[in-house]
């Protein structure tokens, strides 16, 4: 695992394996999710992989009624908006993710600060397969 590049490709491979992984700077300890190959605090490039606990809370969200084709293909539309959000992880870093298990047509019921747990959405098959990061209450 240590040999994996600190790249988006590795990050996505880990998501496929249902792991939300970040990189921690070996010099100053700053933690990044998604991983960074260069620490932007101390500029060191010695990193190590750290798996997050996958727990966090909602920091910001939006209920999207007009989405890109790949979301519309999942059955979302103007009458059935999906929710995307910013999640602040227990480890301190923030990630952007789909927010599942909330009603996008009732935004007033979605509260900032709600505790969330990670979920991995596997979509497509074979060459087209991808895993999307999601969280749910």
């Amino acid at each position: 695992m240590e040999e994996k590049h600190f790249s988006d490709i590795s990050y996505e491979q880990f998501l496929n394996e249902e792991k939300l992984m970040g990189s921690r700077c070996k010099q100053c300890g700053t933690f990044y999710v998604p991983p960074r190959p260069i620490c932007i605090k101390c500029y060191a490039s010695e990193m190590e992989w750290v798996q997050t606990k996958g727990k966090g809370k909602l920091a910001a969200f939006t209920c999207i009624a007009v989405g890109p084709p790949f979301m519309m293909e999942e059955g979302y539309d103007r009458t059935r908006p999906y929710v995307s959000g910013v999640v602040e992880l227990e480890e301190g870093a923030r990630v952007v993710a789909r927010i599942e298990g909330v009603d996008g047509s009732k935004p007033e019921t979605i509260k900032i600060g709600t505790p969330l747990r990670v979920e991995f959405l596997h979509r497509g098959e074979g060459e087209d397969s991808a895993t999307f990061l999601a969280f749910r209450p």
Partner: protein
Amino acid sequence: MQKRRKLGRGVAVVGAGMSRFGMFKDKDSKYLFAEAFNEMRSAVDKGMDPGDIDALYLGNFTNDFFVRQGHWGPIIADLIGLTPKPATRTEGACASSALALREAVFAIASGFYDIVLAGGVEEMSKRTTEEVTQGLAMAAIPYEVNAGFTFPGVFGATATAYFARYGANREHLMNVTIKSHNNARLNPKAQFNVSVRDIMNKRIERAKKKGEPIPDWRDEKEFLRDPKANPVVAWPMHLYDCCPISDGASCVLLVAEEMARNFTDSPLYVAGIGQGSGKGLHAKEDLTCFEATRYAAQEAYDLSGLKPEDVQIAEVHDCFSIAEIIHLEDLGFFPQGEGYKAVEEGLTRLDGPKPINTSGGLKCKGHPVGATGTGQVIEIWKQLRGEAGERQVPIKDLRIGATHNLGGTGGTCTFTILERR
């Protein structure tokens, strides 16, 4: 700021022009730029010879994707008879032509060129909304795209963070929309040159004619609260919180300061110019501001020796209503967390102490992304020269105006301060 910035020599704006912004099935990028170029020429008081232009900087963002052609510098250079002189395309997403302006300023300030054209063009409306959404997502952060975020979505999420922190709500966003439409009503070049009230009256008339139930909105806010009139795009961003899809072009003629009076007796001088970069939504330290704007503003204030209170009028990048509120704070016009109150109190209205987006802003003037940056300069050009007609702000001794342009989800921001001396 670690080091005091300075320009090698002064730079002046001596002409500015734009095409009409809107959705035009019958106008392509070249035609649109020709419209802007012709208006710019006629705006140069003492005339100009296009053969004297030393170089072109051209902002464009999506033509690769929408028109399947990416090499726009020489195409536009040829259009205006500039070849074989150099043409450089700049890309900063929705801030592309502000980058063109900045490069033009540097080219003149360095002493290399004397007369430079900076402009932008964008041709977007010949594609479906879904295709445009997908094309614009090229300026988003890939993580955001994977999480389903759209542009309105990123600003929607920004709004929820802002609301939670400062106690603002949707009603405050509506104040921005109503103001922008009131200004655009007075701008014949605006894509939507109507007030929200005008739109309401038109809908009521139409319902009467068709014998349909007549809507009973009592005021603009009731109209904007009506989900039929103003549907959700990416909550809390509704249709009337979002700028439209537009085609258009704009350009500005810049010359070395010492030559300015050969072109006009009332040039505008570039007092300050700044640019910053920003991180994606997940990596931002503060979800309720744009670090790129703050850096750009600081650079421009530093160069000019001016303060936020010295800026009398500004065009800011209101791609979404919440963005205008945040820019008012990031640019230092109002304290952080109080931008929404300033709008509510009418301080940013045409007749207020700090008029913002007198053109109608991106929301109403239109947002042909690559043309927006230099398009904003045109409004300041008109206002500072007293040529804004019905929407001329009633400020006495109007001398200092500014433009703020934002690209992507805040990845590239610029701030330019112009001065009439």
